[in-house]
């Protein structure tokens, strides 16, 4: 029930913000803030109350909601949460709060509708992270698209129409491939079993011909790689990031890109393990190209937001490498990178927005020497630029180190090339600081320092990055079981771990599991087939006429 609440709060909050926005912009802001704060508290509560369980081996949903939706077609309103989706949901609430706080004074026109779009977009993203029915997943995938299109198209900067259109076409077209693949999987599963169902757990059992699997995997992958974004599908991103209002950029970088990465981890690898393995080195290579190409382009940009946008391409390359390296280190690193990149790049976009609000320009060439007037902003920018370059002690380092250490076990040349990202990130990271806060001659332009609101928001983000850099264990523990399940699906659990000491030699981290309260959690029942996962509403048809059932007869 709590899962539905997470989404309903956002949907209702959005409507309320729109209605109140006609009366007062401040009311819309406060309602949105409250809605997200409520979500955040709920997720924290979920996390704290299930933390012990998450640490234990053996996969289970920590919370689940099930309601038949269109039972004739095997479509159900099925939400479920494991450690991975818990972390992602927490990220939605946290980045959502940041997005609202950073546009507090930026958005003055049609604030009600703005917050409506913001919250509905977040609701869509939340749904994407929670849905375990593929039809529902696609529904949420589309739901997050339209509000974002409006956010860019209405509140964006100079070239917003072009950017919004490009964003929409890229994501919509690639989403179509995924929808075809979902339908393909649906029919193949029905052909095999006689059940028509979109349920994730059922579809996991689908036996596929290798050729079929590759085709279907490609359909999913295209959608996810566009979102991620992986080179060469990244071109929508610099435009969308640059033209979007600050909140839009923060959500794009912090959350929308993560839906692609999440999709790869949740759907592509478990549904098509063999095809993913076949694709392994190609996927890792695409990631490496992204790391280097993105970093090089970032360095060349003259527009601050465009620069930060290209750093996203570079950082998400690490996620791609980690996901397809697919050992425990690399997967943990990929998830850690998703979270840290969301926070650190989100913060850089907030800083870019703050600068634009003060200076009315994003041209790096016109900036310089702001450290003198705005040392706090300079210090914060330095912190996040260093996070971008992967400075140890900050979360991004943990992420990149784990990804690379994991990838090293899989492929040496790819890892060495990916490590060059460490050098290139230093090149653009320091360039940001140099061109904006240093230099400037004797009389730099005046610029106001960060306000209390901005400072507390960015301070919280700094705290998160430091926490993940020095004490990442709670997060690693939270997603451990989910990643283990993904790896079990691929049959890779043994690869590369033979040299490692047993985790048990560190008594500090072996916990005794509390007895599971009866009837609270539902086993993910991979091997047993699962009666729960094949709902009664599923349409049963003779196996010899699966495709014909949609025809008018």
């Amino acid at each position, binding site marked *: 029930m709590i899962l539905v609440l997470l989404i309903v709060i956002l949907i209702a909050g959005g409507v309320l913000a729109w209605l109140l926005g006609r009366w007062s912009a401040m009311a819309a802001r406060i309602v949105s803030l409250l809605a997200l704060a409520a979500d955040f508290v709920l997720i924290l509560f979920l996390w704290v109350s299930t933390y012990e369980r998450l640490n234990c081996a053996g996969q289970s949903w920590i919370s689940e909601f099930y309601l038949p939706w269109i039972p004739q077609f095997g479509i159900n309103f099925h939400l479920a949460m494991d450690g991975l989706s818990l972390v992602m949901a927490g990220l939605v609430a946290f980045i959502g709060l940041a997005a609202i706080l950073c546009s507090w004074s930026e958005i003055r026109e049609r604030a009600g509708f703005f917050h409506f779009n913001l919250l509905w977009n977040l609701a869509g993203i939340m749904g994407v992270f929670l849905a375990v029915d593929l039809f529902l997943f696609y529904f949420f995938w589309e739901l997050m698209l339209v509000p974002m299109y409006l956010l860019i198209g209405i509140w964006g900067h100079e070239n917003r129409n072009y950017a919004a259109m490009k964003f929409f076409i890229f994501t919509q077209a690639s989403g179509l491939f995924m929808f075809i693949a979902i339908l393909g999987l649906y029919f193949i599963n029905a052909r095999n079993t006689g059940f028509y169902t979109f349920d994730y757990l059922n579809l996991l059992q689908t036996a596929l011909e290798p050729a079929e699997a590759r085709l279907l995997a490609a359909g999913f992958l295209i959608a996810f790689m566009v979102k991620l974004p992986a080179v060469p599908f990244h*071109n929508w991103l610099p435009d969308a990031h640059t033209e979007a209002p600050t909140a839009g950029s923060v959500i794009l970088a912090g959350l929308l890109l993560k839906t692609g990465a999440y999709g790869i981890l949740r759907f592509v690898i478990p549904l098509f393990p063999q095809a993913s393995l076949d694709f392994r080195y190609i996927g890792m290579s695409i990631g490496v190209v992204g790391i280097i190409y993105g970093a090089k382009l970032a360095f060349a940009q003259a527009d601050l937001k465009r620069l930060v946008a290209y750093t996203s391409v570079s950082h998400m390359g690490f996620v791609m490498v980690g996901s397809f390296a697919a050992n425990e280190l690399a997967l943990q690193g990929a998830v850690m990178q998703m979270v840290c990149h969301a926070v650190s790049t989100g913060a850089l976009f907030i800083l870019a927005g703050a600068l634009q609000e003060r200076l009315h320009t994003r041209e790096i060439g016109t900036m310089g020497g702001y450290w003198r007037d705005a040392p706090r902003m300079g210090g914060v920018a330095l912190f996040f630029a260093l996070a971008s370059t992967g400075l140890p*002690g900050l979360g991004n380092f943990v992420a990149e180190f784990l990804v690379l*250490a994991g990838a090293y*076990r899989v492929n040496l040349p790819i890892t060495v090339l990916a490590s060059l990202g460490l050098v290139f990130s230093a090149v653009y990271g320091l360039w940001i600081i140099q061109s904006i806060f*240093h230099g400037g001659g004797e009389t730099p332009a005046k610029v106001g320092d960060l306000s209390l609101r901005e400072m507390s928001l960015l301070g919280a983000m700094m705290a998160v990055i430091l926490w993940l850099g020095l004490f990442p*264990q709670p997060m690693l523990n939270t997603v451990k079981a989910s990643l283990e399940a993904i790896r079990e699906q691929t049959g890779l659990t043994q690869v590369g*771990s033979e040299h490692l000491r047993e985790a048990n030699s560190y008594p500090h981290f072996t916990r005794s599991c509390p007895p599971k309260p009866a009837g609270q959690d539902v086993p993910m029942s991979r091997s047993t087939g699962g009666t729960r996962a094949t709902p009664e509403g599923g349409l049963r048809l003779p196996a010899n006429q699966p495709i014909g059932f949609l025809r008018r007869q």
Partner: protein
Amino acid sequence: MTELVWIIPALPLAGFLTLAFFGRRLARPAVAWIGAGSVGLSAAAASVLAAAFMVNPPAGSSYTLTLWTWMSVGGFAPQISFYLDPLSIVFVLIITFVGFLIHLYSVEFMADDEGYSRFFAYMNLFIGSMLILVLAGDLLLLYLGWEGVGLCSYLLIGFWYRDPKNGLAARKAFIMTRVGDTAMAIGLFLLLKSFGTLNVQDLMAAASGQWSRGSALAAVSAALLLGGALGKSAQLPLQTWLPDAMAGPTPVSALIHAATMVTAGVYLIGRTHALFELAPVVMNAVAVIGAATLLVAGLSALAQTDIKRVLAYSTISQIGYMFLALGVGAWSAAIFHFVTHAFFKALLFLGAGAVILALDDEHDMTKMGGLRKKLPLVFWSFMAGAASLSALPLVSAGFYSKEMILWRSFVGWSGNPLLWAAGLAGAFITALYTFRMVFITFFGQPKSDVHRVPGWRMNLPLLVLACLSVAGGFVETPDTLGNVRIFSGFLRSVFQALPVRESLAGLELSLQIPAALAPLLGLLAAYLFYMTIPANGRRFSPAARGSRLRRFFFSGWGFDWLYDKLFVLPFIFAARKNRNDVADMVNRGIAAISLSANRGLSWTQSGMLRWYAIGIAAGAIIMIGLAVVL
């Protein structure tokens, strides 16, 4: 007692946090007290701890304090732990004591700077990171300190950020060391894959147990770690950032770019020497790189006119000696030279800083001269440092450490006469450029006015370091000169004494005589060139047989030019060319095609009846035609 080791890095880090958050609101004396005081307390804590360690050594002469497990993923569980043994104690003592003296000096040196609290915040962060680096019990934590000191080096080189040139020097330092660090990171991946841990002691034990001497994996991993060490310690071919790093305030050069951070590479190799011993090829490479570096940098120092750049090249050259020592397995000799070098090079930088301040920010030696009379205390302490740097026999600390290196490079484990000859030539060059600097700066006719004379906060560190530069070498003397073995005895539990080749043992005295004579010859040559013909100081250097060679040395052997052509310019060119992202052309192309198709088709919807009539007629004719033909 030893379990309080965490206090040593915690104090400067606390100082950093205080200054970072409240520094702008604090009065200058308060900033000075926090900045210098935290390091002073850290030094006091370090000495108490060291005393306790020596009086009552823990079992195995080492102590590990584990604070928490950093992360635990798939059996990989790096820990935040501090490892205390004689090697780390030596480094901790030098870092905190020399660091404190330099902080004290900075209180006066930076007194008029508007970034006073920012300066001390960065300096404290540096001391904290450096202490983490040398105390780390796990290579991943060492890497944290390693990157942390690199960050502070970047921040302090670019401390006067208004001038873009300083920013460029700072970025050059960070990025060049990052190149080495990346090699080191790959080395860590390799070690992690091979042994599943990055704990230094476990790693060394496992490597010695599982890898045979000369095995390929040992060589590769040692070479990768060496990459990190070369970058940090400014050795060939990653040395070019250090001379430019002189853009930072002089105390920074003394602390980071002379006494401590640049020797981190020496520490790393010393700390992982068990691994290097398994890789004789890499050991030889270390020795050869050290020998080459000490000559290249020494000759470059001869041609410089900026007093700080002379010292910078000299630092590269002296660290070359340490690498030479490491390469021949003379571990404690390398560490010994690190100690004496920390004393005399910090002293020389601080003395140069006093001169620069006195002459109102003048770096050019050709505009100095005759300062002997006006700044007597600076002169005499500078002389002590110069004597120690050029290793004048018997009366200087530098002599004992350098002599030890030279001796070992001949008779040591993998030593040979060539390495020894390179070291000996380097000793001659060192004395030559050192006294060239001394004579030009302090002798001859005064060329500028002295604006201010340093106060006690600058004088005291100079005096203390001068005493140490003279007397600091008596803790370790050769067989022929008293055979004191306090220093290497203290390090015995870390480094087993490597045997000298017995057949050569009798040569000791006959090798010492050239080692003692070379610096004296250098001094004499400098005297002849720069004192008897004072004008030479401006125009010639003895290395210059023509201005082309001189410019070659002046530019640091053209490495900057080469790297610009090879890496920087192509990178910038490619970045500029592709600013608009070629990959986007595909999308723009599709959009353009659709648009023109749209335009073409919409043109047909002209609204004019006769066009539509023609269209209908033409269509009908074609259809009929097709029907007839087919």
